[in-house]
């Protein structure tokens, strides 16, 4: 069976006065039905632009290119604006980071939920309303029917994010893109929302791309992981592969930053990755992580590092030998 979403060599460039900003630099991945892919990376690594570019929601100045961008066999690079908007919100929906500002303050929850369904499917207003109530109940909002008449400002952040999730589910999408859906929320709420999303994803058998910088979340929900750094995927694999044997020095660095209960001693300093992300404006030579990597050698600065696939879906972008990487990985795990 073909993958639900297939991306090959996706690039996003933003022209600036000083030259092009290469925000996403040729990434490839796929998502199967019913599967969760986590894209991990720090802010500015291009993970949000990746999701926006899949939805066709990039800012007007940004340029998207890809060798292959297939959603359920539809070539998105060739899809017209109209065709794209038929897919958006219908078969492919997105949940955003900022629940406080992502709902229109001028319309009721009900109105904003129903309009998605009314736009894409031939249903009556009553059916749309019933669907909205059903989904609000699904996302754990009590008194769903009365909520429909409320305005966003009457809801807390957690509730708003639940509404956003319900909104994404209105048309029964096959793919959900969630861009840091819990970042703006309180920690306790974060766990609830995350739990909810996994449950719903299982129940509806949707493919999901979850974008996050939180490795804790990844460990709990992902089937597969792609680690992004400076616009590239530096390592990918199943969640077990990546967490048990982090091959790329950047992934290793990320994992070192997380305290492990029972293992990290009290008072012991957590790991950190020194240095800053290089500018992505203009041409970038060599490995983008070279300036922060503890294993850098001469070739790292000049050679473009390919993504070496060791098995289907498992690969990383490093010049060190597999042996060397594996040894380094042991150190972390």
């Amino acid at each position, binding site marked *: 069976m073909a993958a639900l979403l297939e991306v090959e060599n996706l690039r996003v460039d933003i022209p600036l006065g000083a030259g092009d900003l290469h925000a996403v630099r040729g990434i490839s991945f796929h998502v199967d039905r019913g599967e969760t892919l986590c894209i991990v990376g720090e802010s500015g690594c291009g993970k949000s632009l990746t999701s926006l570019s899949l*939805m066709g*929601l990039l800012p007007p100045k940004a340029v998207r290119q890809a060798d292959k961008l297939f959603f359920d066999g539809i070539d998105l690079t060739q899809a017209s*604006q109209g065709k794209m*908007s*038929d*897919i*958006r*919100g*219908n078969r492919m*929906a*997105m949940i*955003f980071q*900022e629940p406080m*500002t*992502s*709902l*229109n*303050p*001028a*319309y*009721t929850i009900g109105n904003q939920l129903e*309009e*998605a369904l009314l*736009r*894409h499917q031939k249903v009556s207003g009553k059916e749309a309303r019933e669907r909205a109530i059903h989904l609000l109940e699904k996302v754990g909002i009590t008194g769903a029917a009365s909520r429909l008449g*409320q*305005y966003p*400002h*009457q809801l807390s952040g957690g509730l708003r994010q639940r509404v*956003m999730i319900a*909104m994404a589910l209105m048309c029964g999408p096959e793919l959900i893109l969630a861009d840091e859906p819990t970042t703006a929320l309180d920690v306790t709420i974060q766990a609830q929302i995350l739990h909810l999303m996994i449950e719903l994803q299982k129940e509806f058998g949707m493919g999901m791309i979850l974008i996050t910088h939180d490795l804790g979340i990844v460990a709990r929900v992902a089937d597969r992981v792609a680690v992004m750094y400076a616009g590239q995927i530096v390592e990918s694999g199943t969640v077990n592969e990546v967490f048990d044997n982090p091959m790329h020095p950047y992934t290793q660095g990320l994992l070192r930053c997380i305290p492990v209960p029972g293992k990290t001693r009290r008072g012991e300093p957590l790991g950190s990755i020194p240095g800053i992300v290089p500018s992505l404006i203009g041409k970038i030579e060599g490995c983008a992580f070279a300036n922060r990597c503890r294993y850098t050698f001469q070739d790292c600065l000049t050679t473009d590092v390919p993504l070496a696939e060791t098995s289907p879906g498992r690969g990383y972008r490093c010049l060190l030998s597999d042996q060397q990487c594996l040894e380094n990985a042991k150190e972390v795990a």
Partner: protein
Amino acid sequence: MLIYTLKRLVVALLVALTISLISFGLLFLSGDPATTIAGESADEAAIMAIRAQYGFDRPLYEQYFAWVLRAMQGDFGTSFYFNMPVTELIFERLPVTLGLGLAAITFAIILSIPLGVLAARYPNSLIDRLALTISVMGQAMPSFWFALLLIMVFSFMYPLLPPSGSETWVHFIMPTIVLGYYATPAIMRLTRTGMMEVLGADYIRTARAKGLRPRVVLFKHALRNAIIPVVSLAAVQLGFMLGGSIVVETIFALHGTGYLAWESIRRYDLPTVQAILLIFSLIYIVLTFLADLLNAWLDPRIRVA
């Protein structure tokens, strides 16, 4: 919402009271109102008679309260130039001015809101530059000069429209344009900046992510939020048009309150001038009051608090 309305109402009443004081005070600007009314050449006896007739010999506060009390009952005294009750005089002319104002604000809105929306949707495009040019030109064009140019072109060079009078709706075309264009730049600019801001909002991205059609995103989701401040502005501009009507009605000899204001000022017809000032201000106060309520009602964050 109720408390908000009440508070707003109290302020409106206080403003009205203050304006009534100022209107009343106009009488004494020229020094002795009795002399002003009687004319420079009047003899002492005539002035004394007027003083007694209008009660100028009584203490000021007594005069003021008497005036306000009568005004509240709709009695503004008698115009001594037109020789009829001021109230009757004004209400006979008011429909012309109000009609003109409504026509002008409609004209301004129809012109400026679509232009502002398009300019915001396509920044730096041809339509944006056109909008900017219209707004810059509009601000710099004195309305009386614009009126004369229109008369020159459309009444004399190409006799299509009557240069003066208020008999038919055709007489109102040029005055409407002159009065309306003046409000256009402000409304258009506010629409444009409001739309620019709103179009960058997260909820617009949400709306697009739902796959809504661009038209729906622009008008349902964006304009609905950007229009809220424009409503107040339009009301304020409509209020300003009362002042503008003085110039426009005078040029086009439109027999409305604005023209009446100019006539009575020239004739030192003080009771009429006082009444017009008070009534114009009251209309403005009512307009902004209604606009505030409409504003609050349009914004669910205020309405459903």
